C-alpha cells in the first residue's frame, strides 16, 4: 500500500495529462466532426471531395504517425507546435474524421420527409439542421460515438512518442525502475475507471434520448 502511495504523484500527473488531451480532443473534434459530415454531404463538389480526401488520410494512416508528422514534420515547412499542441492538433484532426463519418451516417439515416416537413413549414436550412436533424442524429449515433470516445481514452497513450508524460508512460517508468507490475496494474485500473465512468455517462445520455422512438 505504501508503495502504491509513493507512486501516486507521478501517476496523477500522468492521469492529468491523459485527461486533458482526452477532454480537449473531445471538445474540439465533435464540432469538427459535425462540420466534416456536413462538408462531406455538401452539394458543392470540391468541398465534398476535399472532405473525402481528408477523411481518407486520417483514417488511412496510423494516429501515431500523424502525431509524428505534426510534431517533427510540420516544422520543416515552418509550422512549429510544442509537444502538447502538436498532440492535440493531430488528435483533433484524426478524431474529427472518425466523428465526421459517424455523424454522416446519422444525418443520412434521418428520413427525407423530416427535411420536407421543415421546408413546407418555412424553417430555414440552419434551423432545420439544428432543431430537427441534429437532435435525431445525436440519438442515432450515441452508441457509435461512445465507442469512439472510449477508444480515445486509450489512444491518448500514443502521445508518449513526442515525449509527453501521460498515464501509461508514468506507469512504465515506475515499472521499469522498480521491476514491478504494480504500477502498470494501477494504470490499467485508472483506464478502467475512466472508461467505466464514460460508459455510465453514455448510458445516461442514451436514456435521456429514449423519451421518443
Amino acid at each position, binding site marked *: 500500500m505504501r508503495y502504491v502511495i509513493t507512486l501516486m504523484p507521478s501517476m496523477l500527473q500522468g492521469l492529468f495529462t491523459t485527461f486533458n488531451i482526452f477532454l480537449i480532443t473531445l471538445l474540439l473534434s465533435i464540432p469538427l466532426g459535425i462540420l466534416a459530415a456536413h462538408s462531406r454531404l455538401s452539394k458543392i463538389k470540391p468541398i465534398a471531395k476535399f472532405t473525402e480526401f481528408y477523411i481518407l488520410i486520417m483514417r488511412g494512416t496510423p494516429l501515431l504517425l500523424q502525431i509524428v508528422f505534426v510534431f517533427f514534420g510540420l516544422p520543416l515547412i515552418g509550422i512549429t507546435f510544442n509537444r502538447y499542441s502538436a498532440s492535440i492538433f493531430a488528435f483533433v484532426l484524426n478524431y474529427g474524421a472518425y466523428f465526421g463519418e459517424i455523424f454522416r451516417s446519422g444525418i443520412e439515416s434521418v428520413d427525407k420527409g423530416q427535411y420536407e*416537413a421543415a421546408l*413546407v413549414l418555412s424553417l430555414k436550412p440552419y434551423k432545420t439542421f439544428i432543431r430537427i436533424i441534429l437532435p435525431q442524429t445525436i440519438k442515432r449515433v450515441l452508441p457509435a460515438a461512445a465507442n469512439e470516445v472510449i477508444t480515445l481514452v486509450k489512444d491518448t497513450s500514443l502521445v508518449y512518442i513526442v515525449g509527453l508524460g501521460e498515464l501509461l508512460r508514468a506507469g512504465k517508468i515506475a515499472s521499469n525502475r522498480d521491476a514491478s507490475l504494480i504500477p502498470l496494474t494501477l494504470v490499467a485500473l485508472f483506464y478502467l475507471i475512466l472508461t467505466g465512468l464514460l460508459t455510465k455517462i453514455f448510458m445516461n445520455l442514451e436514456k435521456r434520448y429514449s423519451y421518443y*422512438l
Partner: protein
Amino acid sequence: MLEIKDLYKSFKEVPVLKGISFTAEKGDILGILGSSGVGKTTLLRCINNLEKCDRGTIKITGEFLCRDINEKSMYSSKKEILEIRKKLGLVFQSFNLFPHMSVLENVIEAPVNAFNMNKEEAAKNARAVLKSLNLLEKADSYPYQLSGGQKQRAAITRALVLNPDILCFDEPTSALDPELREGVARIIQDISENRVILLITHDVSFAKRVCSRIIFIDNGEIIEDRLKDDFFTNPLEDKSKNFINA
C-alpha cells in the same frame, strides 16, 4: 387563388405530368383522383415546391411560384418563394411529425422558429386549434404515443396554425381505419372556409363525401374536371367510370 397552367414534369426523361391546367377558388375542396402512378403526388409536390416542374405556370394567390417563359418554367427568387410558401400548407401522407418533439412542440415549431411568434402566444393559439380538433389532451404526448388518427390531427394542426390559403392533403385516409374517415371528412370541411383545399385520394367514397369538385388524372393528364355530383353521377370517360365502380 390557385392557378395551374400547362404543367409538365419528367423524371429522367419519363414524363409524369403532361400539361396539367386548372384553377381553384376560396371554398373549393378539390379532390384529385386517379390510380397509383398517374402523377397525383408529383402534382402536389410541384405546387408545394418540393419538386421543380419543367414547363408551365403556378400562380398562388396572385403571385407566381413559377411562370412559363419559352416553354420553360422560370421560378421566382428565393425570397419571393419564401413568401409564397407561407400561403401553402401540406399534410403529408406519412405525416412527417418531428419524433423528438411533443405534439405541442411540433405545432409551435414553425410559428416560433420561422415566423418569430412569441412562444406563449403560439402555444395559446396551438392549444385552441388542438382543442377544436379534439387533440388537446395529447398536447404533451410524443408522436410515437399517438394513433394514426391522432397523428393526422396533429399534422393538420401543425399546418393549420400557419393559416395557409391553400392546404394540401396527400392521401388523408390511407393511414386511417374506416370509422375515422368521417372525422377527417368533417375536419376538412370545417377548415375549408376561406381557403382552397386540395386533396389527393383514391378513396372514392371519401372523395364523394368531402369534395366539392373532382379532378380526375390519368397518365399525367386531367381527363375530367367537374363538380362532384356531376362527376359521380355521370362520369364521361371510361377510365373514371371504371375507377368509380372499382
